[in-house]
């Protein structure tokens, strides 16, 4: 079940922003994007993935470019962004197998 295009994951050690997909989704359902504020990346903050019941599933710290990547299962998810200053923003997203769903949020 190894996916294609990930930049070398081992164990549980994911870099900030998650492990970027570089050459297609392969057999995975990928949700990725960037968080910006006033047109600039938000490099300090967290992206959380909640399932259709609102339950927490995964979280990554945002990358220097405000980026995040999740390897989800097909279905509907809520992406929640937390950032300093009490910033909290939600966005609903659908993931599909073999597809990279891009999602950019301005907070």
């Amino acid at each position: 079940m190894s996916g294609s295009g990930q930049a070398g994951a081992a164990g549980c050690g994911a870099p900030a922003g998650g492990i970027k997909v570089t050459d297609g989704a392969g057999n995975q359902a990928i949700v990725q994007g960037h968080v910006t504020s006033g047109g600039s990346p938000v490099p300090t903050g967290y992206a959380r993935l909640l399932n259709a019941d609102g339950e927490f599933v995964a979280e990554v710290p945002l990358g220097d470019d405000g980026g995040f990547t999740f390897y989800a299962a097909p279905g509907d998810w809520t992406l929640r962004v937390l950032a300093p200053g009490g910033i909290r923003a939600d966005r609903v997203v659908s993931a599909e197998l073999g597809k990279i769903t891009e999602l950019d949020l301005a907070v």
Partner: protein
Amino acid sequence: MSRSDVLVDADWVQSHLGDPGIVLVEVDEDTSAYGKGHIKGAVKVDWKKDLQDPVRRDFVDRAGFEALLSERGISNDDTVILYGGNNNWFAAYAYWYFKLYGHHNVKLLDGGRKKWELDSREMVTEVPTRAATSYHAQEQDGAIRAFRDDVVAAIGNLNLVDVRSPDEFAGRLLAPAHLPQEQAQRGGHVPTAKNVPWSKAAQEDGTFKSDDDLSSLYGDEAGLDFSKDTIAYCRIGERSAHTWFVLHELLNQPNVKNYDGSWTEYGSLVGVPIELGDGK
């Protein structure tokens, strides 16, 4: 033990920065996070390079742990405050390590790096210099570590707590959703395990829920029998260290073990029973 014996909050850390006898240690999932900024005076422990044997799948041995802490300038008498990203997963894992090797004066920063960052507290890039020590570790405490045979023997007998996400528990995913889907040969869970995702014990800012909420979560809601011993597991043992911390350190359950082999081992074993599907 009370909550104040094992947890400190961000205000406490802020007011004790630089105090002699207190050592802040950052342990992250993202091992590059420390270099981008950390709490002033904190030293780094790399959960993989520093805490894992480089050849076998196992921990660093006692001598390795002694060498690590000596080199980082941590003495037996120091109060170690651990914190990290991802809601303290790897800090809890390191906490369990410290306990395993007999360092009892260790606490977690509640909420870890996330809470510190979301509070907009100061982070620095300056790496502190600490004089080397001669740290002496104890033999591993087998009372808090479970192996695969313990898990098989626990099926139907003890509390088994699978702290992964519901999709991992059911066998639909093999890894957390922020990581590529790889690792164990088979998906699913250990039969009779209850699924209580680690995240249910934490609030959105990474701090732990109240003792009353945690008791309800594992008792009334999940149906753990607190008169029985408990084994917690996840995929590689770090999320379950978070739950071990809750059950053993916050709720004072006496016999709780963390199965660090976890699903990457169990899900690749030949011949052991596996159950698929959602929790019951």
